[in-house]
């Protein structure tokens, strides 16, 4: 009995070893005949482009492949006493000293990306700056008249969970200043007393599903769904002075969100508010006052 078992084990071992031998022969080929040249990223990308699209690649296609390659590229600067690892931004001169985290929990960025504001030329960079730590819903969606007032919380860009005080909010450390890894987003208290963002995991799952299966809709249905999905997007987004105001009740409850007095003062100081007023006067386009667009940008 034991001998039979031994013989079986032995046979299995031999078969496994034969497999290993075959694998080794397969493994050796590239080791022996492997290319001596290391392919550069560029070469690799261009090869892939050709494999993808054949000859006559358009600029759009090239840009797409390049983006695929360069996503999340990190550039490193070794100063000896410290090593700076930062987001690679093509053609950027100044050191940014940070990595731009992706927001995995926004339903909007799935299509609109992290840098969505483009229409209002004079203030688009400011608007994108706000999108860095405020969910789209904060300004672009407002409670219905019959709805109870919303509450605001920070959510972690990676996990989507509520975070009480994001690091960087209450710090004097320059390297952490404004480095929240979190966004402010609206929500409400459910009947069981727990807090729920207006767009949480359930809505995110819907967006995922929609994007996956959009191809099954016919063209008319697609247009319809586009309208339905964006139904609660407010045509009049919240504008600057909703929050940057000297009044006692800004739209966002800064204190509840954990802003220290110092930062609160910054946001509502005459410095910022004054500048915004100037902006309003000279630069704020009609876009932000009733759904229009910048005067030199054509309507979509």
């Amino acid at each position, binding site marked *: 009995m034991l*001998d039979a078992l*031994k*013989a079986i084990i*032995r*046979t299995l071992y031999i078969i496994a*070893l*034969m497999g290993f*031998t075959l694998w*080794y*022969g397969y493994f*050796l080929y590239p080791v*022996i*005949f492997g290319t*001596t*040249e*290391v392919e*550069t*990223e*560029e*070469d690799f990308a*261009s090869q892939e482009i050709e494999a993808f699209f054949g000859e006559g690649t358009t600029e759009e296609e090239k*840009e797409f492949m390049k983006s695929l390659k360069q996503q999340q590229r990190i550039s490193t*600067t*070794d*100063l*000896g*006493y410290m090593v*700076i690892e930062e*987001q690679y*931004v*093509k*053609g*950027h*001169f*100044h*050191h*940014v*000293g*940070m990595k731009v985290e992706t927001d995995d929990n926004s339903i909007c960025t799935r299509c609109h990306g992290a*840098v969505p*504001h*483009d229409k209002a030329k004079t203030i*688009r*960079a*400011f608007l*994108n*700056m*706000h*999108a*860095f730590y405020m969910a789209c819903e904060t300004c672009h969606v407002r409670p219905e008249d019959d709805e109870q007032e919303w509450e605001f919380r920070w959510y972690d860009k990676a996990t989507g969970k509520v975070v009480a005080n994001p690091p960087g909010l209450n710090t004097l450390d*320059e390297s952490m*200043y*404004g480095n929240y890894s979190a966004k402010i987003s609206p929500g409400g208290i459910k009947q069981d007393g727990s807090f729920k963002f207006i767009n949480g995991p359930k809505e995110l799952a819907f967006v995922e599903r929609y994007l996956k299966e959009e191809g099954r809709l016919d063209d008319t249905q697609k247009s319809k769904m586009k309208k339905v999905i964006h139904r609660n997007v407010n045509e009049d987004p919240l504008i600057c002075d909703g929050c940057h105001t000297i009044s006692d009740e800004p739209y966002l409850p800064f204190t509840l969100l954990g802003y220290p007095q110092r930062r609160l003062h910054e946001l509502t100081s*005459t*410095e*910022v508010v*004054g*500048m915004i007023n*100037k902006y309003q006067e000279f*630069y704020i386009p009609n876009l932000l006052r009733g759904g229009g667009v910048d005067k030199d940008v054509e309507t979509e």
Partner: protein
Amino acid sequence: MLGMIMNIDINNSLYGVCPKGWRNVASACISGGLLYMLLMFCGLGLFSSNSIAAAADELNCVLCHKYRGLSRIDEKGDFRLFYINQGLFNKGPHKRIQCKDCHTDIDKIPHDPAKDVDCTVQCHLTEPSGEEKFTHKPVAEVLAKSVHGTANMDEEEIEYPEDYPYCTDCHDQPLYRPLSFFKGQAAGVSERGLSRCKTCHQTGDFAEDFYNHVTSRLQKMRVSAEIVNLCAKCHGDGKFQERHGLQGNVVASYWETFHGKAAYFGSDATPDCIDCHVVYGENVHSIAGKDSRTSATHEANVAATCRASECHANAGEQIAGYQVHTDYDDPDKYPMQHYMLKFFKYLMAGVMYFFVTIIFLELLRRLFPNFSFFKPRKEIRQTTISTAGNE
């Protein structure tokens, strides 16, 4: 030449326009930024560039540019990030330059999209070895005459002018790489060394700046691997090399050398592109093509380049014959390497596949120890037991 630039930089930053207490001025400016803005808004904001003591952010640009997400996608489709990391900005020689010194076209807040920066403009600092305002123009002129510039070429000769680099194609914002020599060399600032400077030079950050500036210039500003990756932005691109009639993938062949491998593993001492392609002791911007008689890589100069005092000082003249950028796939240019490698490849393949086959057959044989097509007579009647059975 290197020394020349070093001097300009050092002295400029340190002896330039009176830096007394500029940090205090800076903080005063930040808190009082509104005043400036109001001045500007009223149309009075025409600054004289050397009006007051140097301050990095006289205009309070960071009021907005300190926010991390300040960004947009530009018309070309590139991501533009306008965030300024002040902590890092102040770690380099540009800390004493105002934003407006480089971004000269910005004259109001809020401002229009800024133009590209021209590094050859004069900034407000005085170059202390002379009386001139400081500018990177001399460097740009050296670059223009080098293989990376078009100054020495006829107009018809210039193909692909867009391929020739501008300052910022190679340089990002410079950062100090200070060294400490106090009781042995190490990276970073020696607080004990610095305290000696501060015995006399107590005002402001003068001592810190001087220390940082000088010790940074006593070593390379970047580690070898970073330089190689920098050059690889163009010279690692096969199509670029082809366009300019340059030899294949020089970056890949560099990584294959011991120089490259050491660089890859973080050695600071190993030569990068600059060490061999710049004439020893010359300005790094003066790289010449290898056909030029003055080039570090001209046949007649290679030996001297290799035998530079920090490198292969004891080597013979013949070290010039070592072929750094070997392309093993090119039998015409590198026949010896090509055929040697081929010999070893076939030797390896021959030996290994012979044994792989034998071992495979041997294992197979073990599964059927007693089977054979032809049985010699004396073996036919033998009752054989497999070797396995016996163990």
